[in-house]
């Protein structure tokens, strides 16, 4: 039941994200985007999905059948399983794991395996190149992502995502210190978010955001699926429903990493409105419905920023990508972790 609700959500979100990506990219490029299907082209995504579902299941003759068929399933399922540990509202979480952060991080790594299977199983030079680059990219960028996540979980001292979210708002059982000094537990709102509790976490959030863009194979890190260079990268041989699964996985992953960032750094389902004196906006705007609303609003803005960045920046060259990861992001992430440790010892 919960699983089907989550699946329906990922499917609907993908359609919405697809439509909004086409429209946002069109407006940025001074054109209109889809306008024919439905009012302002809103039914275009449904038309595309219907078309994809009707396509033939083509498997190249020389392809490794088992790997070829399994790859999209593994890519999608690993991303989909990551949704299991994410909190949507106070008390509303599919599985409140004590190892939430660790679990999500581990399960997202399996997507790398799926991409490798897709590239090898396609028996195509370009697919293999794309998937090799993708594996290199994803594995390298997991380091700064993981270290920045570590820097943030040092503050609430818990890997349970629901716990971490609770400690960023008015429902917290411990003191919530804005900039480590001022106890804002009764005020709540934007002041109690993790990025403001310990300001070096802003840098950690930027590192995590960049690293998560690279994890999703999203521009400017979309070398694996460089449309103009590698034709399609690792998914060039896929058509119809299999391609739809890979596509679904990509957009769900955008949402997933956006949501992880929001939960860990930006307060999750907590309201950004503070209690100002007797106008207790934070109490009024925290609850199950409000919680879902806030987390959706925050995550969708993060997704919009991801789309905005895709259509602004040119693609990284593969050596520039690697050098960015190992020479810039990883040392910075380690520095953030160091500061977190010192912060925890001294300020809390």
């Amino acid at each position: 039941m919960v699983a089907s609700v989550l699946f329906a959500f990922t499917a609907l979100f993908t359609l919405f994200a697809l439509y909004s990506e086409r429209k946002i990219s069109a407006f940025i490029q001074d054109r209109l985007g889809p306008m024919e299907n439905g009012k302002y082209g809103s039914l275009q995504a449904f038309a595309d999905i219907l078309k994809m579902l009707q396509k033939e299941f083509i498997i190249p003759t020389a392809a490794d059948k088992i790997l070829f068929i399994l790859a999209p399933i593994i890519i999608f399922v690993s991303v989909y399983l990551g949704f299991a540990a994410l909190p949507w509202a106070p008390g509303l979480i599919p599985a409140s794991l004590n190892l939430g952060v660790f679990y999500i991080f581990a399960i997202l790594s399996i997507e790398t395996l799926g991409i490798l299977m897709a590239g090898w199983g396609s028996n195509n030079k370009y697919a293999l190149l794309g998937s090799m680059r993708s594996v290199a990219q994803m594995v390298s960028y997991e380091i700064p992502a993981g270290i920045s996540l570590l820097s943030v979980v040092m503050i609430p001292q818990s890997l349970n995502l629901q716990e971490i979210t609770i400690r960023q708002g008015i429902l917290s059982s411990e003191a919530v210190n804005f900039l480590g000094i001022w106890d804002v537990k009764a005020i709540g709102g934007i002041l109690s978010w993790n990025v403001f509790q310990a300001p070096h976490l802003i840098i950690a959030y930027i590192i995590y955001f960049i690293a998560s863009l690279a994890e999703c194979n999203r521009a400017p890190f979309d070398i694996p699926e460089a449309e103009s260079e590698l034709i399609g990268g690792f998914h060039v041989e896929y058509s119809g429903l299999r391609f739809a699964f890979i596509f679904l996985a990509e957009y769900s992953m955008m949402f997933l990493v956006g949501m992880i960032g929001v939960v860990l750094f930006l307060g999750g389902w907590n309201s950004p409105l503070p209690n100002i004196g007797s106008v207790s906006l934070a109490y009024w705007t925290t609850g199950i419905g409000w919680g879902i609303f806030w987390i959706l609003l925050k995550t969708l803005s993060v997704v919009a920023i991801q789309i905005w960045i895709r259509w602004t920046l040119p693609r990284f060259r593969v050596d520039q990508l690697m050098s960015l990861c190992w020479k810039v992001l990883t040392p910075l992430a380690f520095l953030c972790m160091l500061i977190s440790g010192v912060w925890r010892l001294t300020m809390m």
Partner: protein
Amino acid sequence: MIRKVFNVFITVFKGLKLTLGHFFAATESRKVKAISDPNYFAQNSGITTIQYPHVKLPVPEVGRYQLDVEMDDCIVCDLCAKICPVDCIDIESIKSIEAIGKTSDGTTKRLYAAKFDIDMAKCMYCGLCTVVCPTECIVMTDTYDRSMIDLNEMTYKFSDMTAAEADEKRFALEQLNAERFAAKQLALQQNTGNQI
């Protein structure tokens, strides 16, 4: 090194500001202006797309697009077919027995056009046929959009004779020729008869 990092952030920020500006300018749609409008190039922000065929750019009246033939003025001289670089005009003429009539500028017509086909799919819109026509019956109009589903519909037939009429005229011509031939033979015989 730090300078490079700062440079990265500054340039990324500039780029993002630029695209965001375009994104918010997208509420302004394109004003459809004719090319003769003095402010044709004035708009420099907003959407550039014109949603054809709901909205069309106005075409000047002197637009040189598809051909049109005024069949009453045509003297079937075949000059347009001869000059066409892509051979898209196909004319078949039948000599008439007597003068058919006059064109609008006073020239006497003596030929029927049994077939006058212009293949608009081949036409390259060079306008040479309009230059050589002696009666100026073939002109370029300002219609540019005649899309057909069947390629054969792109061949425009300008002749207004039915197949029956064409056959009738050919038959009449043959008859006239046969009469003249017979008369000639008779005259020849009489001549040789006289000489003998």
